[in-house]
């Protein structure tokens, strides 16, 4: 009887330990890395204006302009420019920084921009 009870408790402890391990592994995987997060979604920029997202942890960002090309970056880092409307520009840093992502309108006309950090 005692042995059967002990065996059941042991099995439950093992299941609990496994679940806890999974939980810790998941937290370890997600900690310290930036998740995809949009910024400047649908903003209308004109005359070489800038749009900034809130400061966050990021290892890069992407963006595009609907009507014409844009440049992207984060804080003082330039991530390059697209060459036309709808072209997606991405900057990958290889390490996580805390910075404000930005998109710059690249012409005197108005364009709608979308950005995303990761």
């Amino acid at each position, binding site marked *: 009887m005692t042995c059967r009870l002990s065996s059941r408790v042991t099995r439950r402890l093992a299941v609990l330990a496994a*679940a806890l391990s*999974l*939980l810790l592994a*998941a*937290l370890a*995987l*997600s*900690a310290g*890395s930036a*998740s*995809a*997060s*949009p*910024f*400047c*979604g*649908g*903003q209308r920029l004109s*005359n*070489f*204006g*800038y*749009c*900034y*997202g*809130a400061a*966050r942890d990021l*290892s*890069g960002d*992407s963006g*595009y302009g609907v009507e*014409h*090309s844009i*440049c992207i970056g984060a*804080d*003082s*880092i*330039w991530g*390059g*420019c*697209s*060459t*036309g409307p*709808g*072209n*997606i*520009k*991405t*900057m*990958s*840093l*290889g390490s996580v920084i805390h910075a404000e992502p930005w*998109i*710059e309108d*690249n*012409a005197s006309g108005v364009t*709608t921009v*979308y950005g*995303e950090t*990761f």
Partner: protein
Amino acid sequence: MAKRSDRDGRAVGRRGASRRAGAGSPAALVLVLAVGVSACGTSSPSTQPHPPASVASARRLGADRVVRRVEPLQAARFALLRTPPEGLPARIRRILRAPSAGMSWALARRIRVELPGAYWLVPANGRMCIVDRGSLGNPAVETTCVRTDRALAEGVATVTLARPHAGAPRPARLIVGVAPDGAREAAVRTRGTVARVPVVDGVFVLRDETLAPPDSLSLR
């Protein structure tokens, strides 16, 4: 740092969706819950209407299926894509972390240019991309993806700008592009001026001091 003329974009993103926190993950419920909890901290409240469906789908860069082979139209029109693939180096893959726009890293072709830095043409899902590192000394890995129909009309090009600094007192712009078969010249229009550069073996390069990306590219 460039002037900040518009800060209206702060915290206007739609509800963030973590690439890591995929609902379709095969992990156990506890795993989904754990990642979901960690992703909550990166969400931002929505204050903007959602973009049109076509735009929204274009934004989900990581959601595109990775291509297994070069799309026939791309292979038919770009000589570089008919050469054996070299693939992206492991160090570049580590920085990129995940393929965007359905890029196949294994199908990347090195663009041979006499420049510092490295450039690759990478086929993607309905798009063609250039991945580059070290352009004008930029330590970031840049990726530029263009829809295939646009690539056929204007090529695929990456633009890097460098403001003057202590080591380089003059501004610099570097454009490296790949053109489809038969193109002989690329015209780069920037704020009312046009710079024409030859296409050699399907590649064009423009280096000048214009501190602005082009308004448009065209080929002939």
